[in-house]
């Protein structure tokens, strides 16, 4: 598509052309109207002058007869820049006057109204002029013709013509200016955006639209599109990482499983060997199913398709239930499990998912606290604390252990799917625990914070509180 064709197709260009046309028609109308009115005014002035002249000459005639009239005409006709004066006899022969030639048909127009007539003045050669003339019939068939030159009328129309040309010039000039403006600010930026999108579509997801910093609607659009692109890029990177990790974390046990079955078949050492291999195979496949279930659950939570299972939940109760579930496990690992809760912690959510998230955190905490408590054996090191508090409209549910913790650099990575920090490779687990917790936090419009407990890890679910105490409805919900 050529640049011109593109220009014609742009909506901004069409709008500006339409407004220019409207402007041109309007300006032309104004100019013509003013010209017309000026011309009319000019003619009526000429007519009035004629009437006054004739009235004066008629007075002369009445006072002094034909002689005084002739003298008066003569005198007036000789004044420089004078009007037209002609006295004719009944046949139309000029008796006195300053007009060389005029159509005799004028003499018949005795209706007392001025008419436009072409004429030549005496001593001005062949130049024909135009005048408004009025014919006055005297006694004896004499005719007095008085006129006023209206040559200036054509000058008025010349001014009007000039004004129209000016309007046309302005329209074209403004058109060019608006074209330049459109090209400069609109088309160029739209084209740039389109070009960048093409790049991105062809696979370069790191490209971003230009933001000029002018804060106009294009900047706002570009900024919002950039945010969308960043999210898409993040999702795609995540997807790729997940598929890589699935390939690794599912294929590794599958390979192990297959190898074991093959080896046992090849050894042919009979039933006890087969039985052992099959039992191990069932165990491995159970672990695979568990990993798969965890993946599916995270996907469900992230797509928010469990959102309709939300209900008012008291997080304090959820914390106590999880503590109650894990207390014997902690004790067996030589740890103490405490729960510190301030009052009811109302939130709107999915009890099952929040329970699972907390269970995952407690499970982790027990694993790692047990690791370090083995050496330290001090009371404080052998303790995992569940803390629930309400702060500034947020519900904060923390699981705090005194284990080795996670270094600041590793914390962001720890939340990703399948990431098992090097220090934890020796521990059993699918590596999906924390990413499920993070997904549950996101589902509830909250966050998972991994902090330093000096020493140890403080994992905190920060969730928005529900049923604010100011509202009656809220309090009723809380009471239920």
């Amino acid at each position, binding site marked *: 598509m050529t640049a011109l064709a593109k220009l014609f197709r742009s909506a901004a260009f069409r709008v500006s052309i339409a407004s220019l046309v409207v402007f041109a028609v309007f300006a032309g109308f104004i100019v013509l109207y003013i010209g017309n009115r000026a011309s009319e005014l000019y003619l009526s002035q000429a007519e009035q002058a004629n009437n006054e002249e004739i009235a004066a000459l008629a007075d002369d005639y009445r006072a002094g007869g034909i002689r005084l009239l002739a003298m008066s005409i003569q005198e007036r006709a000789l004044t420089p820049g004078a009007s037209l004066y002609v006295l004719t006899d009944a046949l139309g022969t000029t008796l006195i006057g300053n007009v060389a030639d005029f159509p005799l048909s004028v003499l018949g127009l005795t209706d007392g109204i001025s008419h436009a007539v072409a004429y030549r003045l005496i001593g001005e050669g062949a130049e024909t002029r135009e005048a408004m003339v009025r014919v006055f019939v005297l006694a004896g068939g004499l005719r007095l013709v008085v006129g006023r030159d209206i040559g200036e009328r054509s000058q008025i129309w010349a001014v009007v013509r000039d004004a129209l040309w000016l309007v046309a010039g302005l329209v074209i000039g403004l058109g060019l200016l608006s074209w330049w403006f459109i090209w400069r600010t609109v088309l160029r930026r739209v084209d740039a955006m389109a070009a960048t999108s093409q790049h991105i579509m062809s696979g370069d997801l790191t490209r971003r639209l230009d933001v000029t910093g002018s804060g106009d609607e294009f900047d706002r659009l570009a900024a919002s599109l950039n945010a969308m692109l960043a999210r898409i890029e993040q999702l795609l990177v995540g997807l790729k990482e997940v598929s890589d990790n699935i390939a690794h974390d599912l294929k590794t046990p599958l390979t192990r499983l297959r190898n074991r079955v093959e080896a046992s078949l090849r050894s042919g050492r009979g039933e006890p060997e087969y039985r052992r291999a099959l039992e191990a195979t069932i165990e491995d496949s159970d672990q695979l199913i*568990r990993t798969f*279930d965890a993946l*599916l*659950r995270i996907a*469900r939570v992230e797509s928010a398709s469990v959102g309709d*299972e939300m209900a008012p939940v008291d997080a304090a109760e959820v914390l106590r239930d999880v503590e109650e*579930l894990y207390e*014997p496990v902690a004790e067996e690992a030589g740890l103490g499990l405490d729960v510190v809760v301030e009052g009811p912690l109302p939130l709107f959510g999915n009890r099952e998912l929040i329970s699972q998230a907390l*269970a*995952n955190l407690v499970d982790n905490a027990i694993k790692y606290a047990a690791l370090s408590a083995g050496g330290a054996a001090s009371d404080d090191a052998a303790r995992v604390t569940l803390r629930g508090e309400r702060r500034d409209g947020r519900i904060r549910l923390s699981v705090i252990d005194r284990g080795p913790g996670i270094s600041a650099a590793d914390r962001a990575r720890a939340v990703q799917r399948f990431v098992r920090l090097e220090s934890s490779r020796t521990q059993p687990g699918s590596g999906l625990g924390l990413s499920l917790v993070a997904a549950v936090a996101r589902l509830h419009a909250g966050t998972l914070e991994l902090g330093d407990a000096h020493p140890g890890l403080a994992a905190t679910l920060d969730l928005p509180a529900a049923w604010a105490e100011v509202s009656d409805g809220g309090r009723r919900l809380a009471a239920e």
Partner: protein
Amino acid sequence: MRVLIIEDDREAAAYLVKALREAGHVADHAADGEQGQHMAESAPYDVLVVDRMLPRRDGLAVIEALRSAGDTTPVLILSALGQVDDRVKGLRAGGDDYLPKPYAFSELLARVEALARRSRSGGEAETVYRVGDLELDRLRHEVRRRGVEIPLQPREFRLLEYLMKHAGQVVTRTMLLENVWDYHFDPQTNVIDVHVSRLRSKVDKGFDAPLLHTVRGAGYMIRDGAR
């Protein structure tokens, strides 16, 4: 016990029928929803095992049709979906229990037997459970063995109550997690084992005849060993 399996995967169904027969039950198979509904209506079964996604008529539609016709046969729903919301949908449609695929046969068998027992007892609840010399009074919240009271935490009481309600039957870890704790997720660590062993130390310790048994590869069972 007579079980009807409505499942379109013929291999899976054949395996189930065979395994149930080996466990001493009578098992029939229907390959689609319409046939399954027809069979369930024409013969008395103790338990129905219904797959969710069936050809010709959806599993949930079959259950809803049976329920609206006044059929109260317990139903175990099988589903490959196996998520929280899916489970809730199944139970709302009139299912009595829900088992996500893939499952261990021992899990399915334990659940089918628990359902069959529930329908046999007619829903009327005994106030005192007795297994051997162990006695649990549900109204007074008391547990006695040979007349001596055993103090239990509330959750331990509920755990023992559930086990004794299904005395002589295998109860799986998942069943305990679902029915005693109301959790439907996999807690990774064997939390249930720890709870059961704690309960066992209170109930069985010091007595020569253990009542609380571990069934290898399946779960737990409370039963009078002398019987």
